[in-house]
């Protein structure tokens, strides 16, 4: 994680906003190398699995919008793609 400033920043923001029970952030950028949106330093394509009580009672669209909002800065910048699996504790 030391050389992963984008992933680190996202982790800090998600931990602060969602108090997640599970927070897995995988950098999938290597799989997209050479493709539009891929960056030389990686950290453009991420896959996340989050379990948080903040998702309870929310629709799939609302859960993703919540995460998009927390990561708005990254999505407007280096992050080109974000695959999300979002669950409330009772569902995991």
């Amino acid at each position, binding site marked *: 994680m030391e050389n992963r400033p984008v992933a680190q920043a996202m982790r800090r923001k998600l931990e602060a906003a969602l108090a997640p029970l599970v927070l897995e952030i995988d950098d999938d950028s290597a799989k*997209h190398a050479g*493709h*539009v949106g891929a960056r030389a330093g990686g950290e453009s394509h991420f896959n996340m699995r989050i379990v948080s009580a903040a998702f309870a009672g929310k629709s*799939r*669209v609302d859960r*993703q*919008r919540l995460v*998009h909002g927390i990561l*708005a800065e990254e*999505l*407007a910048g280096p992050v080109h*793609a*974000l*695959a*999300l*699996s979002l669950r409330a504790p009772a569902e995991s």
Partner: protein
Amino acid sequence: MDSVKDRIETDIKSNDVVLYMKGTPVFPQCGFSSAVVQVLTHMGVKFKGINVLEDPEIRNGIKEYANWPTIPQLYVKGEFVGGCDIVREMYQSGELAEMLQTKGVDVKLA
């Protein structure tokens, strides 16, 4: 921006199922768009694919329209359903077929 919004509304209201995607249904140019095309094709759902790579105005406009930062975006009967993760989850749980049928869209599961 109004004309872009009008174009989006015309498309999603005059077609039962619309997919804003990168590339075309026959030649998707992004893995996430391709995954949604495969789900819809597998379900035998007729849809209109709109290639945002050919139209920067729509590419940005659709993100604002749905308040959703990424492509692909699926619309059914004028309503935003979600992107790739949501379509995949709803397909796997059977909710996608149920929702399409409830809305009167033909589904032919193979």
